[in-house]
């Protein structure tokens, strides 16, 4: 990422990254022992790309994704969104960042069990709106949620509660929820990790479609096969990112 040091012609025309992590460190303190999970991670997410973050279980992938998504605070380093340091935002702005700028998809779906599929999607649109704000946009947002679920193939599952849905269906609802506020970056933490192969493949196909539609996506996985669809693959090893420059990337062709 030496854009300033060696300004190759292709790099000059490349749009600036949406998300950029810089020298991120994260240490967990457990029972008096320090566990250094991230030891200075740099990474970029460029507009329109599908970035895969690979790494073994326990390597800190989720930790990194949480930091990119504003769910935790790094011990050192910064996360820039549109060039602005995410963690210098105040609490409410950070909430807004989580709600609007990024969309999170978890391995275990994490739907709210009391709500129907449709409500699970719309609730994300309600979070940053008051009663009046919601009422004003209700029709339009509910329609958008319906469209999204429809697009996910869940047209006849809207009123079902999560417990009545299969794993794959739940994950589709979760994806719709992540997309309802039109986030610029979709952050997916092993979205297929809890699914059988066939279902996982269909979910991946969904991400592929979204990506094809221009959705910037960061996907964490420990399954190298999953990475095939990615524009770029980085691997988290020993608390650092390796293999940042992977061939398929359309925006960052290495100089011959």
């Amino acid at each position: 990422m030496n854009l300033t040091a060696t300004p190759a012609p292709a790099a000059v025309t490349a749009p600036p990254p949406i998300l950029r992590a810089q020298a991120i460190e994260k240490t967990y303190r457990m029972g008096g022992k320090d566990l250094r999970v991230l030891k200075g991670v740099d990474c970029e997410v460029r507009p329109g790309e599908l970035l895969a973050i690979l790494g073994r279980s326990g390597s800190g992938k989720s930790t990194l994704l949480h930091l990119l998504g504003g769910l935790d605070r790094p011990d050192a380093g910064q996360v820039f969104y549109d060039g602005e340091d995410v963690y210098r935002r105040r609490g409410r702005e950070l909430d807004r960042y989580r709600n609007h700028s990024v969309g999170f998809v978890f391995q275990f779906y994490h739907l709210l069990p009391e709500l129907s599929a449709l409500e699970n999607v719309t609730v994300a649109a309600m979070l940053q709106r008051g009663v009046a704000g919601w009422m004003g946009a209700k029709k339009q947002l509910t329609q958008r949620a319906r469209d999204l679920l429809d697009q996910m193939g869940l047209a006849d599952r809207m009123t079902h509660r999560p417990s009545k849905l299969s794993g794959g269906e739940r994950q589709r609802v979760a994806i719709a929820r992540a997309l309802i506020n039109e986030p610029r970056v979709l952050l997916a933490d092993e979205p297929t990790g809890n699914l059988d192969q066939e279902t996982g493949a269909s979910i991946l196909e969904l991400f592929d479609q979204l990506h094809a539609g221009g959705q910037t996506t960061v996907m964490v996985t420990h399954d190298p096969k999953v990475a095939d669809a990615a524009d770029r693959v980085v691997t988290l090893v020993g608390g650092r990112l390796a293999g940042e420059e992977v061939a398929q990337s359309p925006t960052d062709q290495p100089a011959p």
Partner: protein
Amino acid sequence: MFKLLLVLKYLRRKLAPLFAALAVMLCTAMVIIVMSVMGGFLENFRASAHALTGDIVVEGPLQGFTGYEELVATIEALPEVAAAAPMLRAVGLVNFRDTAKPVQLQGVDFQKLEQIVGYKKTLLWNNDQLRQHLRDPQSEAGKAFVAKMTRAFPIDPGPEAGAKIPALALPEAVMGVEVYPFQRRNDDGDYELSRSRAGEKLPVTVIPLTEAGTVGVLEPVRREILITNEVKSGLYDIDASAVVLPFSTLQSMLNMQPRTGFTDFDPNTGRGGEEIQVPGRANQLVIKAAPGADLLAARDAVQAVIAKQWEDRPLQFPPLARTWEEVHQNILGAVENEKGLVTFLFGIIGLVAVVMVATTFYMIVLEKTRDIGVLRAIGASRGGIMGLFVGYGLAIGVVGSLLGLAIAVGIVTHLNEIQAILNTWFGWQMWDPKTYFFDRIPDTVNYTEALRVVAGAIISSVVGAMIPAWIAGRLKPVDALRYE
């Protein structure tokens, strides 16, 4: 908006909030029921005490004071006073067959008494009942007797009235229904007319005092009176001891009537000096305050009138004016005191509600930790999460306390029916009208107080939800998400 949605969902789906709402409901219902019944008793009691005493009572020494006619006239002229009347109070003895019993004698002008304290509504038997009770209404004498028994206000007709039929000459009087030792209430708590003394003669004995209050100089005086009705005032002490007769009757029995006497009269020789007019005496006044007048101000005005009239009697203690509340201070104070204790108990019940809601909510927060993490992760603010749980507490408080109010109203307004049902089904008498003097359990809800309790319950629920809400708000999204 998500708060509203989730509060509604959580209310419907979970068992825990049901328990919390149930706890709030029971606490609310209990407080309202106890308060209504207690307050009802106190209210009944105060009303009875007030009705008996009038607004203000002026009490002098037992041997009485002179100049009461002038005093009454001056007091009645006060703007704070609507009406005033002299009264006599004395200890007496009555005889029922071979049973002697001490009684409180009251001499009053019944017409005045009606004006000042409402005498008629304390009468137990109405005229129809009395007519049925009296055996022989056909004869002339019987008709005259019935007329005597059923006239609006008892009088002392004087000896001439009884020239042909001596019974018609008797002074008329009413007495407390429990004065007659053989009166009993039936299981419903009602008195039986068949046991009543209405229409019976009653020998009454008093011991007159001298002007200086000396006992034993004058001989006891015995006279027969006719009981025309019985009184049920609502205060047991009164109903078990009061015999009320015309003012003039009691005054002359007590030798307190205005009369002609002699200076230096020697009772041993029967000889005296010059003939003089001896003024009459009374030992009490009853006063009705003007509508809207402040009782304490009226009392002070009355006391000032007394002080003025007593200026030229330096050796006499002036009679003392007191409001009805002051007269019944001991017993009213005791009941008020009990109210304080009950309020304290209510405080504890309120605390129980707070703790119940707090623990239930803490459990809900624990159970919902992951969902809280999810909500935070997808953009809910810390304040939003806290608001969710506080709103939840509010909802539970509203639902629980309104249900409690409904239950309390249902129970309180049907308390007497419930008691009747319990009695017929299980033979259990929750409320024995024979032992208590109010024959109905108070069954009205004071809605102002009830709504205050409802508000208290809602506030308690919100307070109870606040700590768990704060804990929930402080959860970090990642920690909550990893929570298993």
